[in-house]
């Protein structure tokens, strides 16, 4: 039986719990932080349970279709938001990540995925799961870092810039960039096993490489000019544009007809 039928129930529970996470911040409740932490994680668990059940019924990792990858983003974004909240108390980042996760769940609700158990032989590899998880995790963290940049630019132009934001962006970028490197390299090692060569400048590979280079620009600007504000923020915001093209846009570019990685038909 198709598991996607249960999707609205699980997603609804997760969203309700996350609304508590956000709503409680408006009150003066003394246990606020604890409630944020608990409801946030319970929401993550609800979504995680759905992913687990889906994995079980599909008899393959649910990482093939766009709808399935959106599930993972909705899962990881709040995780990152909760960790940064616990570590640095950034409420706005937590809220943004929750809103993003809810948007992804909404997209999945509007465009139900076709229930599809098949998995082409090239994807049946021990590299499949680590490659995809590491990528999705990295994109989610880098997306969060770019949100920090956009927020910082807003502060810079319309109110007073808080330098702490750049430190947060840095922490996120270093973590996300490390995962992105792992994702790229796992992909290369896997491609060698599956397709005979580790790098073919396939459009999807090409754009992943561009994303990687774009974040390099930010890292080096930050290193060279630790006190600068405007240029690193802009470079981080631009890197996000490249990331978005890599993620959504590649399928629509003229070059996409040659990609081995666009599995959607």
């Amino acid at each position, binding site marked *: 039986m198709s598991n996607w039928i249960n999707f609205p129930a699980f997603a609804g529970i997760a969203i309700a719990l996350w609304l508590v996470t956000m709503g409680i911040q408006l009150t003066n409740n003394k246990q606020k932080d604890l409630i944020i932490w608990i409801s946030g994680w319970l929401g993550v668990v609800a979504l995680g349970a759905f992913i687990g059940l889906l994995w079980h019924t599909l008899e393959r990792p649910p990482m093939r279709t766009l709808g399935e990858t959106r599930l993972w983003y909705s899962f990881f974004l709040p995780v990152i938001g909760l960790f940064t909240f616990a570590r640095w108390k950034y409420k706005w980042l937590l809220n943004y990540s929750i809103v993003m996760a809810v948007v992804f769940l909404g997209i999945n609700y509007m465009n139900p995925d076709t229930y*599809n158990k098949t998995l082409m032989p090239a994807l049946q590899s021990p590299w499949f799961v680590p490659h995809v998880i590491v990528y999705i995790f990295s994109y989610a963290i880098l997306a969060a870092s770019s949100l920090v940049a956009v927020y910082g630019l807003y502060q810079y132009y319309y109110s007073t810039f808080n330098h702490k934001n750049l430190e947060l962006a840095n922490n996120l970028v270093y973590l996300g960039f490390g995962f992105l490197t792992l994702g790229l390299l796992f992909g290369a090692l896997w491609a060698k096993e599956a397709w005979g060569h580790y790098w073919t400048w396939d459009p999807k590979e090409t754009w992943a490489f561009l994303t990687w280079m774009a974040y390099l620009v930010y890292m080096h600007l930050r290193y060279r000019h630790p006190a600068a504000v405007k240029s690193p923020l802009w470079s981080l915001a631009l890197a996000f544009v490249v990331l978005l093209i890599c993620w959504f846009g590649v399928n629509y570019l003229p070059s996409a007809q040659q990609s081995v990685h666009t599995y959607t038909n």
Partner: protein
Amino acid sequence: MTKTIHQEAKKAIQKPLWVFPWQYKESFLVAAGILLTGLALQVSTGQELQPLIFPYNAIFMTVFWAGIAGVHFAFKNNSIVKWLRSVPASISSIVLVVFLVMIMGSIPQANFTQGVEKDIFGFSHMTTSWPFNLAMFFFLLTLGFTTINRVFPFQKRNIGFILNHFGLWLTVVSATMGAGDLERLMMDLYEGKVEYRAYDDQGNMQEMPIAFKLKDFKLDEFTPKLGIVNNKTGNLYLEEGNSMRMIEENSPYELMGWEFEVKKYFYESVRLSNGRYEPVNEMGAAPAAKVIARNLATGQTKEGWVSSGSFRRQFEGLPLTDEFSLIMTLPEAKKFSSEVEVFTYKGEKSQAVLEVNKPLEVEGWKVYQLSYDSNRGRWSTLSVVELVRDPWLPIVYLGIAMMLLGAIDIMWTGYKQKNNHE
């Protein structure tokens, strides 16, 4: 803090162009010059660059590295050398590469897509164009000078830096240089026959030091799916979660206002003259299912057989209305493999199974299961394998291993605010 930025900015404004130390302006002008030179060379030669083959690639790589090291030690404090290992030069080279790769990633590439017309600037065959290769050279030059400056004198705290920067340099240089020595060939294996000839993508035949005898080609399939097709356009209806539904007996589901239930399913069957299907075990037997469809609005029911057909059998659909029919898709491949006997020129003989994602290694070649006669599916007696030889792979993997460790270092240490940069 803002004060220091303003001072830096002021200094940059006051310093006339091309007076050392070069900053971003000079760096980007150099990058633009490299781009223009590349374009001019491409337009005037009109040729694709050919990759170097052994030993020229090995010589080039050695000279490149020795040259960087030599210049570094001889002219360590020369202003241009200092500039080459500076962040402004690096960023301009990164941006130049990004610019060209963005073009490559956006327009179809001749080496990938058939029938792409080559343009005069080389943008449609980017990896073999002058602009791209000059840009990469500039990129690797700045990366090389940056790296060597931190390798000597060696300091423990620079290990992460060296892993990242030297790892990348090694990976990119050896992958580029190795391209000329990479061989990719294909072989058509027919059941029961010994084959020792392989052909490249141009169709040139060559004899190999290894031979294969295909003993058996095996293909497992997923259960086929049911879907609804528009009789006139032939398009599949894909709007709902159940649009393409894998066959499962006695498990009713809803789609497009109908309820469907598969009553009987045979993986291998034959159609009898009375319209029914019976299971058989013979070549070309096709999957078939008996389905009951009930219109949820009118209660009208339709009952009948659908079959995906095969290279030997007719396909059959179940008309629901004048416009739509229920159909069965051809089963998709789940796993395919070739059982082979392997012979080497030394006279050794062995058995092996080739499978997707599980290449075999013999005599320096990696052998991949590539494809089969898709028309005949699991009755294919042809198995196409690919043979790949890449003698530079160990160096590339060394670079990749360094970068993997470097990535872990980046995540572990994170950003350290340094105040002792040049």
